[in-house]
């Protein structure tokens, strides 16, 4: 069975702090895909990143970075120098080559205070 765990329900930080959102996944498939989505207060789910199981290279996009470690089944997301606009609920998700549906974690609500 596939499962995604986001143990942090809510995180509060002050602007300019760095923050890491944790994501741990479970799957027996060898080919799988990991995703992060952002849900701002407006409600839509915004795609941030997609990673496949054969590519363990970390990725950086501006203030965002992702650390994929197969050894610990984790796909953590770090925001550097957080800003108020980063306030949102962030979802980690998984699907596999044999399963089209996304399996989501319960989400982490990030609040960035000025």
């Amino acid at each position, binding site marked *: 069975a596939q499962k995604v765990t986001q143990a942090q329900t809510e995180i509060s930080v002050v602007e300019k702090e760095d923050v890491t959102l944790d994501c741990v996944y479970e799957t027996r498939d060898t080919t799988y895909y990991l995703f992060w989505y952002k849900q701002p207060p*407006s409600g*839509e789910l915004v795609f941030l990143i997609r990673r496949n199981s054969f590519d363990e290279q970390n990725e950086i996009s501006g203030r965002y970075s992702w650390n994929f470690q197969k050894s610990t089944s984790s796909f953590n997301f770090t925001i550097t120098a957080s800003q108020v606009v980063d306030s949102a609920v962030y979802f980690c998700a998984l699907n596999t080559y044999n399963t*089209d549906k996304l399996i989501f974690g319960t989400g982490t609500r990030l609040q960035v205070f000025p």
Partner: protein
Amino acid sequence: EAGVTQFPSHSVIEKGQTVTLRCDPISGHDNLYWYRRVMGKEIKFLLHFVKESKQDESGMPNNRFLAERTGGTYSTLKVQPAELEDSGVYFCASSQEERGGADTQYFGPGTRLTVL
């Protein structure tokens, strides 16, 4: 390029009534998905269309839910009759590749359904 759109954005109905949600995927996307998030819980898969065919409807909660995708374009999700536990946010997503599992799903803004 227009994203995934959903209508209505909000719907408030009474228990026993019928509601129909609509989703327009990104143009050219053959894969269309419905998901639901009940208050505070994870987003859960409902079903997957490839063009007009139901590929996987394993997540549909019961036979009060009926999804259609006529002509392989937009999709509707009807709840009849609605129950209190149907309240939540219904998301639609679409992806381009034939093998959906290997492609990114782009989501719409969701429809917030409240059943009183």
